[in-house]
């Protein structure tokens, strides 16, 4: 099965010829071998070229595609797609025209500073999110109209969740 990869934004391709423990794979055309075990759920111990990599898979928060792979503290964001499924997935993707204002951290919405339909300037505050005693004002990246407002005061939001869209 050939899979399409995106790692930290750059594309690639991997084909698993044999899944392991004696793993054989073709990465961007080059065939390689590795000894792979899963000592814990979501953890891959990869022996590649005599070196050991303890790779921990972390599901990303809602909205984000792919997974994070953590090795020795380094974090790689990798998206793996089965090309046979891409058409279907593409169909599900919504329009991406509007700029979104997203929560950078999980927390509570303590103030909403705009109303639906408001004209806003670049840098204007949209909402204030608080977590652990720290308040953070979410700002519009550029000028436009508040096309949607998805939260209200008191709502709990997760990291990356869209608060509003600006068109």
């Amino acid at each position, binding site marked *: 099965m050939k899979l399409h990869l995106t790692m930290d934004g750059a594309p690639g391709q991997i084909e698993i010829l044999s899944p392991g423990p004696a793993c054989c794979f073709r990465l961007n055309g080059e065939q390689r071998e590795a000894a792979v075990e899963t000592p814990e759920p979501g953890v891959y111990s990869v022996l590649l070229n005599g070196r050991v990599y303890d790779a921990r898979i972390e599901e990303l928060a809602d909205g984000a595609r792919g997974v994070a792979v953590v090795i020795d*503290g380094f974090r790689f964001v990798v998206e793996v797609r089965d090309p046979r499924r891409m058409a279907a997935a593409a169909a599900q993707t919504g329009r991406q025209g509007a700029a979104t204002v997203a929560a950078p951290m999980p927390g509570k919405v303590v103030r909403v500073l705009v109303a639906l339909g408001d004209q806003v300037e670049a840098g204007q505050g949209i909402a204030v999110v608080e977590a652990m*005693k720290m308040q953070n004002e979410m700002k519009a990246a550029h000028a436009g109209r508040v096309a949607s407002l998805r939260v209200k005061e008191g709502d709990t939001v997760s990291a990356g969740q869209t608060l509003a869209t600006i068109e």
Partner: protein
Amino acid sequence: MSAPLFSKVLVANRGEIAVRVMRTLREMGIATVAVYSDADRNSLHVRMADEAERIGPPPSADSYLRMDRILDAARKHGAAAIHPGYGFLSENAEFAAACEDAGVVFIGPSSQSIRAMGSKTAARQVAIAAGTPVVPGTEGPVDAAQARAFGRQAGYPILLKAVAGGGGKGMRRVDREADLESALRDASSEALRAFRNGDMYAEKLIERPRHIEIQVLGDRHGHLIHLGERECSIQRRHQKVIEECPSPLVDLHTEMRHAMGEAAVRAAAAAGYYNAGTVEFLADAQRNFYFLEMNTRLQVEHPVTELVTGLDLVRLQVEIAAGRPLRLKQEDVRWRGWAMECRIYAEDPYNNFLPYPGKITRLTRPLGPGVRIDGAIYPGWTVPVDYDPLLAKLAVWAGHRDDAADRMIRALREYDVGGIRTNIGFFRQILEDAEFRAARLHTGFIEEFFERRTPPQTSPDMAVAAALAAALHARSRFRAPETTRADSTSNWLRAGRSGLLR
């Protein structure tokens, strides 16, 4: 195995400090009572305690700051004393007094001492009276002429500060007399807008100051000593994140330890202080030091002092609170080796250190020689959004500073917390930084570090391993694999991409 000093103690706190205090209480044969808000029913300090009492809903004002409920819980459970930890009610003179009134021992200083050292200005007066050096300043509000006089006397640069100020508003650095008048005018009008009070005072500006603090300890019989210093210059958002004992500066000039220790003990004695407390100083490049404030409670970073002196500060606090005389004399205090502590926060250091609470999905902690962890987290626990994002304190000890730093890096590499963001990978970069290793520390260190930082490089094979792991993981989730046609490839694997060290 003798009778415990108290049969039962209530810990009026949460998180790592509640757990840390309970550990020593348990070692002393003292039963522990936890209090908890609704956000903390599943928190480790509750699960570990012998007894527990709910004190209200999540907001601190409705739970951990409710003196009445905490005292009710102490009465209900028959706790003979209360340990306040740090934060919350720990420096609240009214609470200390309420405990005294209720016949419950407050494990800390007297309410009078807390009051005397409670406000920065009151504490400054106590320090001046005790002959402890303070940052030169005008005390009261100044006009332009008075500011000019102060500038000539203290020497530039100076700092103009709003009397009613805080958070950097209405603050101006002035490097020469020519700039003074306009700076005063601007700052004053900013202060007027922000605080409805345009009064300004002037202070000598300490450039690239180091934060060095002295641990003091005294019994209720007038015997007061110091346990040496800690250096806490590595700060983000004016909050310490790495602490060391000894201070690299003091270690080179040990006469400073004696001088600062003496000054701290004098200031504490002037406030009639007993139990554990910390006198904070700023130190400049010329090794002058200036009283900043006194923290009238156990400090977050107390473990580095414990590791180097071999003392258990919580045990000493309890003994002192029980009226025991402190048998330790100043000359008995011995400092051995080097300790460092990193405060592990649920935050994203690459996004302005914003808090990042959430559910902990993976947790592997460092073990082995010279590693100490004080934490209150476990896999599957959700870090509540209601409190401070401190997850744990990772402390190491080794014979020398370089060995301690290498040990800290080793420990940070073993530390894996999944599901949330932490500053673990960020600390590793600080610890590897040449300026840090050369001990050129000051409170603006992290801001400067961000300017010179070059992201660490990974090996190409590490990226290959990551890609393979992700593909195998995805494969285990896809069903019914089939072969399909390939398209273009890229060279991201050859580049040694810089993964983010999280």
